């Protein structure tokens, strides 16, 4: 957009961007450098030697995967219903869902806590999976409905004329045709579930149920504030996210920005 005609101006622009990204790089450098201070790679060895680190990962994977599956299934069904099927007072239902978009999760704490203890769900995966999925569904439905509305209705009619039930239309038309938007839903649900801190903090009490966002806290207890080991654990927990992003760069950027772009 900037037009730099002279080589000097071009170097100037390059220099400007470089200076501008330094503050963004700085915390990451501090993180890696801090994790190697003192015992060097020994910090990592110490962190990895703590039993249970794998369990944190496993729990995060289980929770994120469950949330994704739940959100995906429920969203696809609803988006198809909203976009292509006959629903009485459709817009009312839709706005009821959309109103949930603005909901801060902290509002759910007290009622969920009381309900979870009453139903015996406290300290189970469900106590985190259900609210996280519930919070992700409205946005996912909004995106997917808009996407399905872009698919020509004639396609569905042709399928029906040929004798396909709406279930077959769903399985053979909606599922394959919505792949691009499904990828976006997958990514932002993954990030939302994987990075969530409040729900696991409140609803998962036993250490063998907890997720990776609680790892720094766990290590603060484990190493009584040995900062280098805490940072090593932070690097280890951040690594899968960074690798996933680098491998699926396009998908991440599109997924997170899908809502704001036409």
């Amino acid at each position, binding site marked *: 957009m900037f037009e730099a005609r002279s080589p000097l101006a071009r170097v100037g622009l390059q220099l400007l961007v470089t200076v501008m990204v330094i503050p963004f790089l700085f915390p990451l450098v*501090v993180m890696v450098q801090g994790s190697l201070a003192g015992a060097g790679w020994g910090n990592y060895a110490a962190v990895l030697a703590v039993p249970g680190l794998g369990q944190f990962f496993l729990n995060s994977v289980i929770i994120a995967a469950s949330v994704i599956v739940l959100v995906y299934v429920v969203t696809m069904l609803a988006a198809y219903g909203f976009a292509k099927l006959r629903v009485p007072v459709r817009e009312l239902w839709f706005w009821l869902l959309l109103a949930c978009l603005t909901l801060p999760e902290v509002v759910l*704490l007290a009622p969920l806590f009381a309900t979870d203890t009453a139903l015996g769900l406290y300290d189970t995966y469900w106590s985190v999976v259900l609210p996280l999925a519930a919070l992700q569904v409205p946005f996912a439905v909004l995106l997917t409905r808009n996407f399905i509305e872009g698919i020509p209705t004639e396609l569905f009619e042709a399928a029906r004329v040929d004798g396909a039930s709406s279930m077959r239309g769903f399985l053979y038309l909606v599922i394959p045709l919505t792949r691009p938007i499904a990828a976006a839903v997958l990514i932002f649900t993954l990030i939302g579930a994987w990075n969530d801190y409040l729900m696991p903090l409140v609803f998962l009490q036993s250490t063998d149920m907890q997720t990776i966002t609680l790892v720094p806290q766990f290590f603060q207890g484990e190493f009584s504030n040995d900062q280098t080991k805490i940072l090593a654990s932070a690097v280890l927990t951040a690594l899968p996210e960074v690798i996933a992003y680098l491998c699926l760069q396009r998908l991440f950027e599109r997924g997170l920005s899908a809502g704001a772009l036409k």
Partner: protein
Amino acid sequence: MTETSLRRPGRRPPSSRGEAATLRARRRRLQPRGLPWIIPALVLSGGLIYYCIGYTGYISTLDWDGISPDPTSVGANNFVRILQDPVFWQAVQHTVLFFIVTFVLQTFLGFLFAVLLHSRIKVAVVYKVIVFVPVVLAPAIMAPVFRQLFAPDGELNWVLQHVGLGALAQPWIGQTSTALPVIMVITIWQWTGLTFVLYFAAMGQVDESVLEAARIDGAGNIRTIANIIWPDVRGTTVALAILSAIGALKTFDIPWLVTIAGPNEATEFLGTYIYKMTIQLDHVGYAAALSVILLIVALVMAIGFQLAGREREVRD
């Protein structure tokens, strides 16, 4: 959205009235019932969330510690107390200030990055990755890093001392005057990448020929950006404003983990205050009343943005 829903599927105008009637009847018969399809989403999301909201509304009229079997009803007393609670008003002030500062700076930085990386910069992808990586990192995992970075003997003060600005070195997290700015800086660090990616994508859709025409007419870089690109991406700016405002109301992880909402409530937000009241101090009724207020603010704001956005569209 309303427009799409009101329109019947199929756009071909029917040739005669009789044909139109049969067509409509056939269409209706062909469009199967959709209610069963949307019920799972309504139950999971709507059910859980509205159940919780209703429950919160009920709790907000109680004086309850969260455990005792028979809480006393206090009517609207909790709400009256909240309006007289200085910490609540502090939290509101922080939220508003936080929203304005983070939104303006993120927009400025994100927009600038997007313009620059659209300008034939070498190894642009490297810059892109550096700016975007914070978006995917969990705030909870980055919190210890920032606690160290802003500590009295942390890296920021070290850098300041080594570039001759040692006089500026201070305990960033530990004093009321700088704690809130620290929280803002961390948030900007985290979310500028998203702002950037959105603007970057939106700028890709700006009409090249308009830019060329402007250049031929002698418009410089600054004029092109201010008069063509900036107005062209206004939709993105509005979307980002909504995201930032909702984000400000939801703020919890960073102030809780980096400054523990302190010192002296200097970084208290509605989220941290509700958490403290619910989990640590067992004033569950009071926290529920706070939640109700937070909900109303969020909803009013969302409707406000929606209406403002619509008005703009009409005027254009």
